[in-house]
């Protein structure tokens, strides 16, 4: 009797902690969503908490009619798609050969790759290199210099190494070369890890900020995060927004909220669907470094 009562109290306590966690995670998003649908007057009088006051779509209409913002959204979407595909291809090209035990020079290749995880040249040397090879202020600088993550490569390599080697060997008996084996046996079986890495790479590019801040000075090539940063940190909204292209000053508070929603919603739509995969990926990465 006593144990069951205490265990009920325990259950209630556990559920309570989880509810607090849920509230803490969701409140900021709901608050911003509410702000984005509210009138400026309500925002200035701070009447908005989790429900819109004076529901309207003005902020969204403005954001969508503002060429700069929609262009940045499409531009970032394009960068994300192209960057993710390139990253997946290069990561596979790196991980797959390294799963061959017999590959001559494997230890050496592994060593020079892993070394870059522990020691990197630093921001300024990388910046100067990109400058010297003419990458600065070009779209390519947002795709190529960080297209291969060693961490992600190790994820894929360990996933491939865990596949039964007998499949590869019997395919080789039948005369299939390494490329054939990769294409018709490994890649179809690697769907879970490919989905995980696609998510990691895509989120990385969609959220990427510092490379654009440091390497890109051309406004047309600004990804969404850089535009968003300039918008939200503007101390005097009116000055900056008018400088950025002119708008009704009163709108700025809900405008910020709407802009944040545009950058956030795509991620919220995608990540829960891939939960099964990325959990496997996250644990694999931490266990097998």
């Amino acid at each position, binding site marked *: 009797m006593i144990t069951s009562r205490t265990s009920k109290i325990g259950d209630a306590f556990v559920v309570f902690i*989880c509810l607090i966690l849920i509230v803490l995670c969701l409140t900021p998003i709901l608050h911003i969503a509410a702000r984005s649908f509210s009138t400026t007057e309500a925002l200035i009088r701070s009447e908005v908490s989790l429900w819109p006051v004076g529901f309207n779509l003005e902020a969204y209409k403005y954001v969508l009619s503002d060429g700069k913002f929609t262009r940045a959204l499409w531009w970032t979407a394009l960068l994300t798609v192209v960057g993710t595909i390139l990253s997946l291809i290069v990561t596979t090209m*790196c991980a797959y050969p390294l799963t061959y035990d017999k590959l001559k020079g494997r230890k050496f290749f592994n060593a020079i790759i892993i070394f870059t995880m522990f020691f990197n040249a630093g921001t300024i040397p990388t910046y100067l290199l990109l400058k010297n090879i003419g990458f600065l202020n070009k779209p390519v600088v947002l795709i190529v210099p960080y297209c291969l993550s060693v961490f992600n490569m190790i994820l894929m390599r360990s996933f491939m190494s865990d596949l039964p080697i007998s499949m590869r060997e019997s395919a080789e008996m039948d005369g299939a070369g390494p490329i054939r084996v990769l294409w018709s046996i490994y890649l179809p079986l690697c769907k879970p890890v490919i989905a995980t890495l696609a998510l990691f790479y895509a989120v990385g590019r969609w959220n990427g900020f510092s490379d654009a*801040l440091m390497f890109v000075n051309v406004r047309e090539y600004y990804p969404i995060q850089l535009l968003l940063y300039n918008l*939200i940190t503007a101390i005097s909204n009116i000055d900056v927004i008018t400088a950025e292209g002119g708008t009704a000053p009163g709108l700025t508070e809900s405008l910020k909220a709407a802009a944040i929603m545009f*950058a956030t919603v795509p991620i919220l739509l995608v*990540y829960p669907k891939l939960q099964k995969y990325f959990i496997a990926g996250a644990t694999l990465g931490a266990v097998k470094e």
Partner: protein
Amino acid sequence: MAQPVSLRGNRQSTLNYFRRYWTLYLLLLVPLVYFVVFKYIPMLYIQIAFKKYSLVKSLWEMPWAANNGMEYFIKAFNNRDFLFSLRNTIMLNLLDLVVGFPAPIILALVLNELRFKRFKRVTQTIAYMPHFLSWIIIAGLALQVFAPTTGLVNNLVRGLGMQPIPFLNEPTHWVATYVFLGVWQSIGWNTIIFLSAITAINPELYEAAAMDGAGRLRRMWHVTLPGIRSTIVVMLIIRLGYILGSEFDRPYALGNALVNTVSSVIATFIYHFGIRGLQFSMTTAVGLFQSIVGVIFLLVADRLAKKYGERGIV
């Protein structure tokens, strides 16, 4: 007499080997070129930390800096802004460690006790969400939620009859908010590794403990925690290894002119004085200092891990 034969045999098999596997090298070529161009060639540029940078001269033609090439290191360590950012890097990382490291362990223990499967799944999905948001978005959320006059939290604070709290506009409060937001962003995601370690614990241990009359808390303390001890140690050591590492987006996005004395870290220092201020030699020196200390910390951490009988990380 046997030697030439076996030599030819070797050469034959090597030839066969390459005939069979040359495509693997072809595949590897692209990533290897990537690493050489974007990771190793920049290492050549490290020498400008010891040289007087010049826009017009090539790397090899630049003259050595004064004081046996150490001029820019000396300059950096006499630079107030650098010393501030060094202190802040260590301070913020240590606070992150002290607060942010135990948090997901505790949460994992709690989630593990949750018996309602669907509720657990929903909780986890929601808790992972902040991990996928950029620091720019989080800063955007925080600036609005914590705003001094119109923010959600300060409305509540005022409702309770207290003075509004300057969460992001006063150094001490800023540090607390910075650490809190770090926990908010990472707590859910970081439970994944501990939860998976918990599932590896032998269920018989729980049964035995229950048989001995151990309640929920004692089972947590005597079975679950010891069961994930090695995961905790390895994760802790990895964190210790990165104590001088510095994030850029997080302090940069959350910082503002009022809190510069605590929000500037090594990464933002390098950005401001290097890429914006064009002091390439000094900022390269700072970056090199950070990389070298980082490697030393990692190696020491790895030694420690192995000393405590855990698998290393290097």
